[in-house]
């Protein structure tokens, strides 16, 4: 059951209604049942995995909190890490590792075939594993009191709006809110509904529309031209943002209607002036998770520069791997690591250059150049993220830097399926997205957000979105969200 399905349109209102109607003691058990049902609709047989992860981590967190013996604490933390990462590695990386090792052996002259298992990748495993681990680690650090009620803890792990694709919530934020009985308020209803609508718009009216043109290039790179690759990559940057942030918006909206505030996961990432800033605006829950549980424990930037650069490299390497079991994701992570390292090392020289030119670093022309350069760098990295294999990524590089320029733009657009109507639709949807994104804020602080909250025509927007949705029904209504594969 994905968010963009008729089943969810039936499921969610029932759950929300029950949440407000049921007495306090029954609210969270109902949410727990609903969350497991939501997950079972994807893969009923794999609910045992999320249950098992929840059980192990709950036992570990309670033992850790009840003992003063540091060895015992470390033992149970280690057990949790091994079990959770073990399950994650097995389901997600076993075939990848097997294929990679086999490839290396064959390269060295051996003749072995890869041992592969037919494994169903559990939906959301990367997300709920990290969420579980953050809980246990926070208990170990003494930052959070463990939850004594197993079933309540299970709700924290499996809360359905953010279960399969984040945001990766922290116990300090989500647990108190789940415990508090929320009453329906018009403000929450409208703001939650606003987030959901924008999310559906991003997913259905932008991401799904653009995906057709992106796939036309990336699923046939041999026939693609350099111009086509550039257009498709820029469109992919928009697609993945709309797909992922659209999901997050829907998740935030679903929770907000019930009075629960999930954390912000995106903050206009493509307005970033540096790659470092990009990562403070993109998939915020994951980047803060890596900062708090990997980067800082490794030493962060409070060590000598070579070690600090190494720490950055490790974090982005792991981040790339987290996204998928493919060398393209690893390369994508490494590219971002290189960006960060070079960016950090060259900050003094860049600032010095700007000062010598005599322009303020915060002036509009400099800000525009920095945003443009950052966007280009991020898009270049997206090539590896989107490419199906390393070989195809190599072909793309070759076309971009040598052989792919002997085509006309009109021929490229025709090859991608971009006729006049398609270009108009793509342009309109992206421009509308930009305006909508600026008007709708997560913190509801800016005055312009009042336009959609208070304006009578807000209801009107609902109808427009629904019609666009209905008309797009024939275009693969049940398309999945990109980040479900992680």
């Amino acid at each position, binding site marked *: 059951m994905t968010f963009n399905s008729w089943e969810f349109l039936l499921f969610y209102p029932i759950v929300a209604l029950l949440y407000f109607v049921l007495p306090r003691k029954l609210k969270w058990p109902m949410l727990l049942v609903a969350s497991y049902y939501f997950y079972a609709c994807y893969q009923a047989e794999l609910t045992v995995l999320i249950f098992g992860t929840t059980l192990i981590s709950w036992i570990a967190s309670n033992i850790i909190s009840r003992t003063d013996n540091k060895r015992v604490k470390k033992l149970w933390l280690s057990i949790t890490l091994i079990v959770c990462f073990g399950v994650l590695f097995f389901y997600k990386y076993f075939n990848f590792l097997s294929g990679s090792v086999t490839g290396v052996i064959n390269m060295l002259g051996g003749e072995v075939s890869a041992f592969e298992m037919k494994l169903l990748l559990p939906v959301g495993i990367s997300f709920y594993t990290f969420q579980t681990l953050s809980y246990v680690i926070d208990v170990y650090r003494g930052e959070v009191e463990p939850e004594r009620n197993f079933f309540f803890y299970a709700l924290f792990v499996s809360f359905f709006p953010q279960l399969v694709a984040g945001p990766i919530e922290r116990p300090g934020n989500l647990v108190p809110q789940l415990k508090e009985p929320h009453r329906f308020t018009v403000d929450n209803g409208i703001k939650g509904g606003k987030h959901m609508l924008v999310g559906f718009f991003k997913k259905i009216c932008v991401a799904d529309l653009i995906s057709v043109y992106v796939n036309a290039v990336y699923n046939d790179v041999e026939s693609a031209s350099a111009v086509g690759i550039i257009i498709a990559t820029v469109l992919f940057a928009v697609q993945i943002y709309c797909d992922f942030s659209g999901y997050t918006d829907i998740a935030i909206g679903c929770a907000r209607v019930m009075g629960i505030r999930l954390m912000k996961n995106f903050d206009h990432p493509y307005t970033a002036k540096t790659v470092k800033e990009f990562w403070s605006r993109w998939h915020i829950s994951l980047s803060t998770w890596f900062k708090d549980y990997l980067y800082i424990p490794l030493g962060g930037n409070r060590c000598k520069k070579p070690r600090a650069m190494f720490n950055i490299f490790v974090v982005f390497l792991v981040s790339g791997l987290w996204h998928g079991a493919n060398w393209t994701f690893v390369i994508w992570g490494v590219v971002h690591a290189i960006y960060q390292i070079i960016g950090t090392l060259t900050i003094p020289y860049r600032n010095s250059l700007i000062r010598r030119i005599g322009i303020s670093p915060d002036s509009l022309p400099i800000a525009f150049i920095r945003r443009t350069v950052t966007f280009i760098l991020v898009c270049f990295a997206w090539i590896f993220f989107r490419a199906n294999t390393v070989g195809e990524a190599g072909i793309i590089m070759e076309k971009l830097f040598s052989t792919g320029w002997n085509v006309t733009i009109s021929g490229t657009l025709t090859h991608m399926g971009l006729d006049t109507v398609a270009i108009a639709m793509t342009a*309109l949807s992206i421009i509308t997205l930009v305006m909508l994104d600026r008007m709708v804020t997560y913190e509801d602080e800016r005055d312009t957000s009042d336009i959609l909250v*208070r304006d*009578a025509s807000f209801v009107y927007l609902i*109808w427009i979105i629904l019609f666009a949705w209905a008309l797009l029904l024939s275009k693969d209504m049940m398309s999945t969200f990109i980040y479900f594969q992680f």
Partner: protein
Amino acid sequence: MSILETPLVLVALCVMLTIHIATCFTPKLVSKILTYVNMTLHIALIYPLMYFQFDIDEAVLVYMISVFVFVGSRFAFSNIVKRREHTDDI
């Protein structure tokens, strides 16, 4: 047959877009009435679009233009709309 060659659809679209922009400037009660009229127009437009079996991309484009003008008009005239609105939505 293309939507761009169909006077009925073009006229309906022009009316809908005009109402989008007009609701930014009209008094609140008139704005609400116009909103409901426009909602009805949007619903009603579905039927000729389906009856004449227009290309689905062109049909979607009509609604996308409507969404674009709706959001754009509010974006462009945000200060005017904000000053005019004082109470909750309908």
